[in-house]
């Protein structure tokens, strides 16, 4: 089967900032993404867990984005502009996909 090289961005971010990140991705021309819940963890700002929480402030999510390598720098710049003040991390890796025209 024909596969194509794309870039996979995994952005772990605070839940309240998700709508803004989605706005950034949309403006950058990203065609799609998936938001996944994160259960618990620990980072530079201490531990967190979504268990029993009724506020979105202590929750984290992972936003999974697949993009074309040609737009990687533009997307990263815009995401970084948002994330430089928020709690969160960004990971970039290579990935093979089928149906390349979708990304």
């Amino acid at each position: 089967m024909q596969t194509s090289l794309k870039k996979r961005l995994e952005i772990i971010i605070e839940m309240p900032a998700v709508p803004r990140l989605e706005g950034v991705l949309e403006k950058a021309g990203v065609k799609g993404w998936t938001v996944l819940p994160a259960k618990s963890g620990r980072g530079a700002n201490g531990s967190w867990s979504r268990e029993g929480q009724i506020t979105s402030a202590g929750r984290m999510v992972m936003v999974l984005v697949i993009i074309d390598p040609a737009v990687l720098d533009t997307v990263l710049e815009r995401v970084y502009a948002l994330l430089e003040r928020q709690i969160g991390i960004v990971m970039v890796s290579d990935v093979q996909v089928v149906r390349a025209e979708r990304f």
Partner: protein
Amino acid sequence: MDIFTLAEANLISPPILFFVLGLIAAFVRSDLSIPEAIAKALSLYLVMAIGFKGGAEMAAGDLNWSVGGAILAGIVLSALLPILGFGLLMLTTKVGRIDAAAIAAHYGSISIVTFIAASDAARFLDTPGEGFMVAVAAAMEAPAIVTALILAGSAARASNGAEGHGESRLSVLKEIAANGSIVLLIGAFFIGWMTGPRGMMAVSPFFNDIFRGVLCLFLLDMGLVAGRGLLRNWRVLKPGVIGFGLYMPLIGALAGMGTGLAVGLDGGSLGLLMTLAASASYIAVPAALRLALPEARPAISLTLALGITFPFNLVAGIPLYFWLARLVTGTGG
């Protein structure tokens, strides 16, 4: 009723004991847990019930100028308490300006769960407040945020304006106003007000009969969350900050007492206003501050509000505030 009788009646009430059970379960690292979705549903039910009951009670009573006075008192308290809190934090602790502003915002705003527990305790202690105190609670959510953003000064402005990704004060207010809990609280209040006692009769089994049982289950969860939050993040709370989490509620309650007396509140309503002024937000404000002051460390403010001030108010503060309120208004002993 003296303060010890009030404290005893509060302490041995099922909701408080379930909260303590949650704390103990967290501290002994039990695997007891309330699923996130159920915890959320319980909180929505409680907010809906307290809003509806407040509206129905207001419809059954006389609408007079004291409603406006009480709401204005709440707004003034919410706007000014952060200034006091910020000053105390800067003077007595080593937290930075941004964190101090964020913590101050939590303490100017209110904890709706503490308000629900206080409303329940007020009924239990036979000093229920006026129904319009629900509207006061809703009005006190947001002003503290605006004050905190002003206090954070240049750092907050930099955060708000840079690259267009920050929030203006107006959009932060919109964020708080659109918070699900507040929309439901205000909406249920108006529905209760519009349908009045007849509406209350129609839904009484849902909003009255099972209320205390649901509150017990929810406070069990809050005990677990507060206890586990403390276990995870106690290292970020220095003694000065913990002290703030214990004395700031008392200062807020006294400010609430003075303001409530000035607008002529009755004993029960005064106790509720004191509780509101003493409480610290951990639902609406933390979420809004993650956008308005993203540099602030939520581990400090959230752990302090939920792990220190909430248990303090629940166990010791509420009976103290109601005892004082009854004393100064001459209702009860």
